[in-house]
C-alpha cells in the first residue's frame, strides 16, 4: 500500500483556498430570477386572507405564488408538510407565499409587500405540555385528512431486553436523573440555496445543497407528479458544499418553492438564504430531554439501563425525527448492560421544526448516559474510568440490540485517554484549584447505518485514453474529504497516482445511485464500492494486456535496440509468463509482477489506446460496482437489528478549570482516542476530528437557539455563539486506534460524526470533578454554573 495512511494534497484544496470552488451562492444560470419567501408572523394561526396585489405591481416582479395559485406539493417522510402553507401556519417560519423577481432586492421588497391576515390560534411550545390533555393540536388532521387526537408523532422506537425492574431492585447502586439538550444550528459555512430550471421538454434540473442527491431526485420527481408533470424527470446537481452536517438530509420547502417559481415563470429561479435567514428559516438540531437510570452490582458491573426520551420535533417531521434510531445504539450497546428499557416520545409543537445534525441523536443520548455513569461511579465509590473499563465492550460480541461488533478498540481508547489526561493523579484530586478531569465514550455506526431499505453506494470507473481514471460516485463531498479518500483508495487499489484520479461532480444524470452521505458512511461505502470496481477494472486491463502487452514490449525492445544495439536482453523469458493473473498495475504502468525491468513496463495509456484502436473492434475500460453493506434494517418497534456493518468506538477526555467568580469554563486540554479501523488520510482525519471536537465544545458550552413562544431570539452570530480559534486554543491530543475492520475498505471505519458525540459529557464530567456541581442541561453556561455553585455554597453554610 503506497498511499493509504498518507496525506496527498486533497483534490479540492487549491480551488477552495483560492476561492474558485463554486458553491451554490456562486452559481448563476442565464436569465435566472431570484426568489424570496414570505414567512409566517405567528407560531400558530389561521390564514384568513393573502393579498398579493401590491407585490405583483412592483416592477421587476415576475411571479407571486401562494397555495391558492399553485399545485399542492407535500413533503416530509410523514407527508405532513406543504411547500406553501394552506389554511394554517404552525410555526414562525412557515412559508405562505413566494416571489420571483429580476433581482434579490426586488424579490425581498415584493415578499414584504404581501399582506397576510391571520387569526391567531392557541399554540404549544413545550413537548410535555403538548402531550397533556386538551393541548392545542399542531396538526388536527393527518395527511389523508383523518382527524388526529394527539401531538404525538406516529413514529415508534423501542427496545426492551431482560427484566429492568427486577435488575433495578437487585442493584447494589443506582443513579438516575434527567438531562436536556438544546436546539442548535448546524452553522454550515455555506448557507442554503438552490436553483431550479426547466428545460423546454419540462424536465427539471435542480442545483441543490444536498447530501442525498438520489433521494432528492425521487422527492422532486414526486413533486413534478403532484404538479401534473407526468413522466418528467428531475436531475440533481450538487455544487461544492460548505458543510452539510445533516442539513442536506431532507429536501426543503425552499427547494420546492424555487421549482414552483421556475415552473410559473419559465425561467431558472434561485433561492439563496443569507446568514440571518439560515438562522431563522433552516431547521436546527432538535432539543431532547432524556430520563436515564443505571445501576450496577457491588463489583461495578452494570445491571440495567432505563431510558426515556422526549423529543421536541417542532411543527413538521423531517428525517431528524428518526434520531431515536441512532439513540438506540448507545442506549443498548455502549458498555455491556444486560437489562434495558428504551422508549421515546416524539412530539409536535409550534416550535421551529427540527432536522438532522451530525451524530443524529447520539450526542443527546450520550450526554445523559455518560453523565449518569459518572454519578453511578460516585454512588458506588468506584473510579469513573474503572467503571467504564469494567463494563467495556469487547471484540466479537453481540449487543442486546443485536449489533454484531467484530472489531472494538474501546478498551484501548479508555486506557489511552486516562493516560493522556494523567487521570490517576488528577481525577478527584483535592488540590485547592477548580480544575478537574472527565471522560466519556461513544459507539456509533462505523459501517453505514441502514435506516432505509437500501444502504448502498454505486461507483462507475472509467479510464480515458491517457490512463486517467474518472470516478463517478453518488457520495457527496461537503468538505469532509470524501474525494481525497476516494483518490487514495483508488490509487492503491487500481494502481494509478492519486492526481490521475479525477472525481466527477455529483450529478444524478452521470453518477450511480447512492442512498446519501450521512451516518458517517461516505468513505466507508463509496470506497468499498470502489474496491469492488477496482478488481473489475484491473481485470479488464490485464485481459487486454494478455493480447496487447507482447506487441507493446516488442516495440519497446525494438526502439531500445535502435538507440543502443548493445542493450542487454530482458533478464527473463517474459513471453512464457503472459497470463492475466501475472500482471500488475502500479503508478499507471502495466508490468509482469515479477520484474521491474523498465522495458517490460508498459504505459497504461499506451495499452488502453492500443486496445481502443485495435483492428477488428476496440474496447473501452469502464466498469461499475454496487456495494450494499452486510447489515440489517432493524425492527424499530423492537429495537433489534444489526444496523451497521461495523461500529466505531472512542473515548474523549477533558481537563477544565472553572473560574468560580464568573462560572467561566476554560478547557486546559483534550484527548480524543478513536477506534477508526484504519487511517486513510491522517490529515483529513485529524481535521475532521478536531472540527467535531469544536462542535462538541460549542454544544457543551456555548450554543443554543433561544426561543420565546416559538420565535427565535438569537438568529445571528452576534448572539448565537460558536467557539472561535481562541476558545479552541488548548492542546488536543489525538490518537487513532487501528483495529483493522474486516468489512471496512482497507480496514477503515466511518468517522464523519463520532468526534462530537462524547465531548459534552466529557466536559460536564470534568466540571463536576472540578467544582462538584453537575449541570444537566446544555449548554453549560456561566450563568447556570454560577447559580449552581451558589446553591451548593448556600447548602454548605
Amino acid at each position: 500500500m503506497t498511499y493509504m495512511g498518507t496525506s496527498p494534497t486533497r483534490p479540492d484544496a487549491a480551488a477552495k483556498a483560492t476561492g474558485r470552488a463554486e458553491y451554490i451562492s456562486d452559481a448563476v444560470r442565464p436569465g435566472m430570477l431570484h426568489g424570496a419567501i414570505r414567512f409566517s408572523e405567528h407560531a400558530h394561526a389561521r390564514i384568513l386572507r393573502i393579498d398579493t396585489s401590491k407585490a405583483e405591481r412592483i416592477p421587476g416582479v415576475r411571479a407571486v405564488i401562494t397555495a391558492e395559485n399553485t399545485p399542492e406539493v407535500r413533503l416530509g417522510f410523514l407527508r405532513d408538510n406543504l411547500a406553501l402553507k394552506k389554511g394554517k401556519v404552525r410555526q414562525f417560519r412557515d412559508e405562505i407565499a413566494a416571489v420571483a423577481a429580476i433581482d434579490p432586492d426586488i424579490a425581498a421588497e415584493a415578499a414584504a409587500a404581501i399582506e397576510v391576515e391571520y387569526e391567531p390560534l392557541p399554540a404549544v411550545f413545550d413537548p410535555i405540555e403538548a402531550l397533556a390533555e386538551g393541548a392545542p393540536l399542531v396538526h388536527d388532521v393527518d395527511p389523508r385528512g383523518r382527524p388526529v387526537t394527539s401531538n404525538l408523532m406516529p413514529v415508534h422506537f423501542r427496545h426492551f431486553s431482560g427484566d429492568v425492574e427486577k435488575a433495578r431492585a437487585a442493584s447494589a447502586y443506582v443513579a438516575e436523573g434527567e438531562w436536556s439538550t438544546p436546539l442548535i444550528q448546524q452553522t454550515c459555512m455555506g448557507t442554503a440555496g438552490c436553483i431550479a430550471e426547466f428545460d423546454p421538454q419540462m424536465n427539471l434540473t435542480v442545483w441543490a445543497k444536498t447530501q442525498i442527491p438520489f433521494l432528492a431526485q425521487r422527492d422532486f420527481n414526486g413533486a413534478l407528479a403532484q404538479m401534473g408533470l407526468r413522466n418528467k424527470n428531475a436531475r440533481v446537481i450538487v455544487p461544492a458544499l460548505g458543510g452539510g452536517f445533516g442539513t442536506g438530509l431532507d429536501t426543503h420547502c425552499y427547494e420546492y418553492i424555487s421549482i414552483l417559481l421556475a415552473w410559473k415563470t419559465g425561467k431558472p429561479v434561485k433561492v439563496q438564504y443569507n446568514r440571518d435567514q439560515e438562522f431563522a428559516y433552516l431547521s436546527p438540531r432538535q432539543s431532547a430531554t432524556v430520563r436515564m437510570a443505571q445501576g450496577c452490582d457491588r463489583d461495578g458491573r452494570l445491571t440495567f439501563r432505563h431510558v426515556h426520551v422526549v423529543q421536541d420535533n417542532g411543527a413538521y417531521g423531517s428525517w431528524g425525527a428518526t434520531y431515536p434510531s441512532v439513540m438506540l445504539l448507545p442506549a443498548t450497546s455502549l458498555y455491556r448492560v444486560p437489562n434495558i428499557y428504551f422508549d421515546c416520545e416524539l412530539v409536535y409543537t409550534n416550535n421551529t421544526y427540527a432536522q438532522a445534525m451530525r451524530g443524529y441523536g447520539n450526542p443527546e443520548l450520550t450526554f445523559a448516559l455518560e453523565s449518569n455513569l459518572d454519578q453511578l461511579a460516585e454512588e458506588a465509590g468506584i473510579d469513573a474510568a474503572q467503571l467504564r473499563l469494567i463494563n467495556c465492550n469487547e471484540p466479537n460480541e453481540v449487543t442486546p440490540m443485536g449489533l454484531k461488533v467484530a472489531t472494538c478498540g474501546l478498551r484501548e481508547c479508555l486506557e489511552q485517554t486516562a493516560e493522556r489526561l494523567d487521570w490517576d493523579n488528577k481525577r478527584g484530586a483535592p488540590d485547592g484549584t477548580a480544575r478537574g478531569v472527565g471522560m466519556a465514550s461513544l459507539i456509533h455506526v462505523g459501517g453505514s447505518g441502514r435506516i432505509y431499505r437500501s444502504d448502498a453506494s454505486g461507483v462507475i470507473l472509467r479510464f480515458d485514453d491517457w490512463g486517467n481514471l474518472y470516478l463517478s460516485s453518488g457520495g457527496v463531498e461537503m468538505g469532509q474529504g470524501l474525494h481525497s479518500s476516494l483518490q487514495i483508495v483508488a490509487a492503491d487499489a487500481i494502481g494509478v497516482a492519486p492526481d490521475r484520479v479525477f472525481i466527477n461532480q455529483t450529478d444524478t444524470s452521470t453518477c450511480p445511485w447512492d442512498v446519501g452521505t450521512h451516518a458517517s458512511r461516505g468513505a466507508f461505502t463509496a470506497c468499498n464500492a470502489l474496491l469492488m470496481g477496482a478488481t473489475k477494472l484491473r481485470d479488464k486491463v490485464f485481459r487486454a494486456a494478455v493480447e496487447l502487452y507482447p506487441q507493446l514490449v516488442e516495440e519497446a525492445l525494438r526502439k531500445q535496440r535502435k538507440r543502443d544495439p548493445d542493450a542487454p536482453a530482458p533478464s527473463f523469458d517474459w513471453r512464457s509468463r503472459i497470463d492475466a493473473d501475472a500482471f500488475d498495475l502500479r503508478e499507471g504502468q502495466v508490468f509482469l509482477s515479477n520484474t521491474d525491468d523498465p522495458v517490460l513496463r508498459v504505459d497504461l495509456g499506451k495499452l488502453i489506446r492500443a486496445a481502443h484502436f485495435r483492428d477488428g473492434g476496440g474496447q473501452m475500460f469502464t466498469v461499475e460496482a454496487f456495494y450494499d453493506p452486510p447489515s440489517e434494517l432493524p425492527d424499530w418497534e423492537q429495537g433489534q437489528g444489526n444496523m451497521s456493518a461495523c461500529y466505531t468506538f472512542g473515548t474523549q477526555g477533558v481537563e477544565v478549570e472553572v473560574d468560580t467568580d464568573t462560572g467561566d469554563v476554560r478547557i486546559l486540554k483534550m484527548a480524543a482516542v478513536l477506534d477508526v479501523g484504519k487511517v486513510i488520510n491522517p490529515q483529513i482525519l485529524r481535521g475532521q476530528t478536531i472540527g467535531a471536537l469544536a462542535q462538541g465544545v460549542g454544544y457543551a458550552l456555548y450554543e443554543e437557539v433561544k426561543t420565546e413562544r416559538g420565535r427565535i431570539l438569537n438568529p445571528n452570530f452576534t448572539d448565537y455563539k460558536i467557539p472561535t480559534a481562541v476558545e479552541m486554543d488548548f492542546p488536543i491530543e489525538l490518537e487513532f486506534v487501528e483495529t483493522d475492520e474486516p468489512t471496512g475498505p482497507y480496514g477503515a471505519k466511518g468517522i464523519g460524526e463520532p468526534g462530537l458525540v462524547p465531548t459534552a459529557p466529557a466536559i460536564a464530567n470534568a466540571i463536576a470533578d472540578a467544582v462538584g456541581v453537575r449541570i444537566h442541561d446544555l449548554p453549560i453556561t456561566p450563568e447556570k454554573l454560577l447559580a449552581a455553585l451558589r446553591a451548593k455554597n448556600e447548602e454548605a453554610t
Partner: protein
Amino acid sequence: MLADIPVHRPSSLEEALALLADPPDGERPTPMAGGTDIMVVLNSRHVVPSSVLDLWKLDELRGLSVQDDGTLWIGALSTYRSIIASPLANAHCPALVEAARTVGAVQIQSRGTLGGNVANASPAGDSLPVLLAQGCDVVLQSRDGGRRTRSFDGFYAGYRQADIQPGELIIGFRIHALPPGATSWYRKVGTRLAQAISKVVLAGVAACGDDGTLTTLRIAAGSVAPTPIRLAAAEAAGLGGRPTDVAAAVGAGARADVTPIDDVRSNALYRREVSGRLVESWVRSL
C-alpha cells in the same frame, strides 16, 4: 440598497464640520469613523441614513500625546490597534490597552475607534468603564459652536443618549493622569473569549496611603445599567479601609450599585453576582 446611500469624504476637519453644519442635501449626514457599529446597523436595515460622513481621512483626529498637565490625549479616530501599539497609552492608561485587546478581534481592533465606541453610547462599550474610572474629558467641536470640553462623567443622559449636539463631532479625549502610586484594573466578562459583547465589564483605579488604607478607589461598570456607571456605594464602602478588610463590603456595594436586566446574553442575577465577586476579588488583591 446600501450602495445607494451617498457618502461624503471630507479631507479636513473644517470641511467635515461644514458638511454637518450645512448639509448639501438638507439632511445632516451620519458620521462614520471605523464603521464597525454603523455598518451593522445599516446591514440590519432598521435605520437608513440619508447620507454618510466618512471621517476616515481626518488625520487631525488621530494620534496620542501627553499634555503638560499629565493628561493623555487620544484623538477620536484612534483605533484600538493604535492604542495597543502606543507606548504612551501603555504607560498612562494601561487599562485602556487591556480593554482595547478585548474588543472584537484583530479586524475590529484595526478599524474600530475610541470615538466611535464613545459616540455609539452602548452600555456595553468596553472602553467606557475605563474612561469613567480613570477620569476623562471629552472634547467636541462644531462649526458654529467651536470647541467644547466636558467631563465624561455624566456624558450619557440615558440609554444610548450621548451629549453630542447636532453638528458636533468628538475630537478626542483627555484622560486624567493616574494618581501617584495608583494601580488600574480592567475585566471583561463576555459570552466567549473573542468576538463577544460584554455581559459585565469593569474597570477600577485604586491607591493606598502609607498606612495601607485606600486613598483612591474609583470603580466603573458597563452592561449592568442603561449607561456605563460609577459604582458609588462600592467606592464609599472601600475608601479609607484596608483592602482585605473592606473587600467584601465593596463587593456588596457593587451588587447594590448595579441595575442589570435579563437579555439574550445573560441575566440580571448573574450580572449582579459577577460584578460583586469580581470587584471583591480585585480589592482583595490590592
